[in-house]
């Protein structure tokens, strides 16, 4: 399959952004070395309790990272092509599917960073209907066993759930039972014990990481913006892939400090910042340069984006590590604010709090887990007077990315935006959020 478009890299301002990538690369090398030394390797996902694996000295890798990495290395089309050769529809979720496409690739010699080592086991839960199916195909191709877990959906969503972290007890209980069962399984499978004191320490580390991330989020409200999405997306590496670790805390402390320094010095990421944009969906990982594309011409900065986390750190007790992990991973996180109605309210609230002039919503039609509720978001934003535009794109697939057209559409959209409307739209957003009940049965 011919590559027709080569994506643009983003421009990063912070040292820690570059260091994050280097840390991930080193992590990858360590993983390969661990495999070569016969140490256990597990593939898992960012929505699983990675702290459990870490304290058991089980090396873990997240194939979602490899999907983004392969896209950035412009290899997605080859991997997606493998799927179609196998007979899969073009319209299956390409972000998830690309990982299977890599597994099925016959020539892995040029795989980015040498390719992830084949795991001894993959552990994942049904965050949607597709994950485990893909897992079964991967496991069949590579011959490793699976450990499947489950996820539940709420029967109610409380108002502003990303603040209150409220969920039903029966969901938490089910998650806790599953985590205890996972621990017992891992202990048996890898012949090692989990030290509960170490798990408490890992949870404490994660709590601190989320607190640091939240601090950065508060700093990002500053006008002009100290950083843009281009830097923020580089720094998701620690919060996504290094949870439970001291290294993660160090990386995020550095991130917080660099952002704070810029705020203290009044340094703007876009010196002539005029328009503040919000990108509430996942990135097109093959061309992150899109986040810088409107800075020079329009003074438009992407100041807020998808990777926001609830204020979970206020409400957990590391002395109860299993319960804390259940609250983080199995409660509302994925389901409640990644889907309507939570997602709709979350978008309006953050558009208000980050003084947003316009919202650019990327519609990757094959990915329902991320790109859902878009028309509802747009309608809600319209009600509060914040303009938005939906652009057709994809997370990894360049076939749905028409670069010039997209840039032209966003450019035209930016020209219609008016920062003087901010006070009025903030007032209306507050009214809207008060009116939304958001209490399901």
């Amino acid at each position, binding site marked *: 399959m011919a590559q027709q478009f080569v994506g643009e890299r983003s421009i990063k301002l912070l040292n820690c952004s570059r260091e994050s990538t280097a840390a991930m690369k080193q992590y990858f090398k360590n993983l390969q070395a661990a495999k070569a030394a016969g140490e256990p390797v597990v593939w898992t996902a960012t929505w699983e309790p990675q702290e459990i694996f870490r304290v058991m000295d089980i090396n873990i890798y997240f194939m979602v990272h490899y999907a983004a990495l392969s896209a950035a290395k412009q290899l997605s089309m080859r991997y997606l092509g493998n799927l179609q050769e*196998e*007979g*899969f*529809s073009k*319209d*299956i*979720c390409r972000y998830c599917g690309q990982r299977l496409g890599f597994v099925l690739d016959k020539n892995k010699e040029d795989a980015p960073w040498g390719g992830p080592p084949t795991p001894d086991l993959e552990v994942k839960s*049904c965050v*949607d*209907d*597709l994950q*485990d*199916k*893909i897992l*079964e*195909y991967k496991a069949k191709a590579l011959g490793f066993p*699976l450990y*499947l*877990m*489950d*996820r*539940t*959906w709420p*029967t109610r*969503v409380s108002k502003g759930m990303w603040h209150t972290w409220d969920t039903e007890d*029966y969901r938490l209980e*089910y998650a806790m*039972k*599953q985590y205890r*069962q996972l621990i017992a399984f891992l202990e048996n499978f890898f012949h090692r014990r989990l030290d509960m004191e170490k798990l408490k320490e890992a949870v404490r580390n994660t709590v601190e990481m989320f607190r640091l991330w939240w601090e950065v989020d508060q700093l990002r409200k500053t006008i002009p913006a100290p950083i843009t999405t281009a830097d923020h997306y580089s720094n998701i590496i620690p919060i996504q892939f290094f949870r439970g670790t001291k290294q993660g805390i160090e990386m995020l402390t550095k991130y917080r400090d660099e952002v704070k320094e810029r705020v203290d010095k009044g340094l703007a990421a876009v010196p002539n910042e005029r328009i503040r944009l919000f990108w509430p969906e996942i990135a097109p990982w093959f061309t992150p340069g899109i986040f810088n594309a409107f800075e020079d011409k329009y003074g438009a900065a992407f100041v807020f984006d998808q990777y926001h986390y609830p204020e979970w750190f206020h409400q957990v007790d590391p002395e109860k590590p299993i319960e804390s992990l259940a609250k983080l991973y199995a409660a509302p996180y994925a389901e409640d604010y990644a*889907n*309507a*109605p939570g997602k*709709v309210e979350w978008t309006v609230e953050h558009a208000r709090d980050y003084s947003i002039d316009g919202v650019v919503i990327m*519609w990757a*039609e*094959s990915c*329902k*887990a991320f*790109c*859902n*509720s*878009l*028309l*509802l978001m747009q*309608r*809600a934003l319209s*009600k509060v007077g914040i303009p938005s535009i939906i652009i057709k794109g994809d997370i990894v697939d360049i076939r749905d990315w028409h670069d010039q057209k997209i840039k032209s559409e966003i450019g035209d959209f930016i020209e219609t935006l008016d920062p003087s409307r901010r006070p009025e739209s903030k007032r209306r957003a507050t009214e809207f959020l008060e009116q*939304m*009940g*958001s209490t*399901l*049965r």
Partner: protein
Amino acid sequence: MSSFETMQRYYREHDIALKKWKDEGSKVVMYLCANVPEEIIHAAGMLPVRLVGDPLIPTTVGDLYMEDSYCSFMRVIFDQILRGNFNQADAIVIPHSCDAIIRGAKYLWTVKDMEGIEFPDMYWVDMPHNKDLLAYEFYVGRVRAFRKEMEELSGKTISDDDLFQAIEVYNKNRTLLQRIVALRKTDPPRISGTETLQIIGSGMFMPKEEHNRLLEELLREIDSLPPKKGTRLFLSGSCLDNTEVMEFIESCGAVVVGDDICTGDRYPENLVELLPDPVEAIASRYLYKAPCPRMVPLANRIKDFSQKVRDSHPQGVIFYLLRWCDSNMWDYVALRDELKEFDIPHYYLDMQEYRLTNPESLKTRVEALVESIEG
């Protein structure tokens, strides 16, 4: 009117029993998908009626809120709920079934909240993907909660005896329907795929006791039905809540002798086993029944598909998938590989609209498949 004609009428008109129940002051609960434990609604003295679309009605209001990249079946249901087409119901029940259904429910809640569009209260039954002991315990808890909700809605305490009675009625219905399904697998088949959808589906719009009576009558008359002629095909794929596609396939010289569709052969499979606790009995049936494509592991569905193909002796298979029916799209390659064992041809058609929008294209393809089989 024969029993079959009566069932056809109920299947076509949907609201005959619903109106009667409402006129008599009884409550009607409309539900979506085969993953709702209907026995609970029945035991509460309410009439369960399935939510279905209508291929002749284009979506309008729903298009304002739901993206085009969405299951074409759920788009129709979503639209009709927002247009008030199901407002005769006292409540709507939506299970945690596939991703499209669960998100569709959340979209509905949001629209109700944001736009003030009124439609019946919605109830929610969560359902795990797994089938291990923890998943079972979780699901039993959800079915118990649903029992309580239906008690509150109906104003009636549901006793264990009520549940056992409902189980008996539903098990009888499943047993009778299984006899019907068996008749499409004979050589020659006694019942077509279209007739099967009508017979099974009609029971979703009338009290099961009445459906049982009609089925018994039909089974007594079954010898009077002419044997069906045509190339034997098996249909795999998305939910079909009307006969448009099935009729079309069968108009191309084929007879559909089996399927793995939730509104078809899968609906009556697996009786509720009599356990001391009726809630556990019902939960077991719904969790361990023939796998819906949203369940894991995929290996179970492969096994189930293979067995169904083996039992119905088809000469070919059609995979017919609605637009953005993601679970089925992922399953296809595994199911296709399974067909190698049978050495029969298949045709794969995905991303189909709810309404048959390009019948000529389908006709050409089905006829080509039939010709390739018949030589």
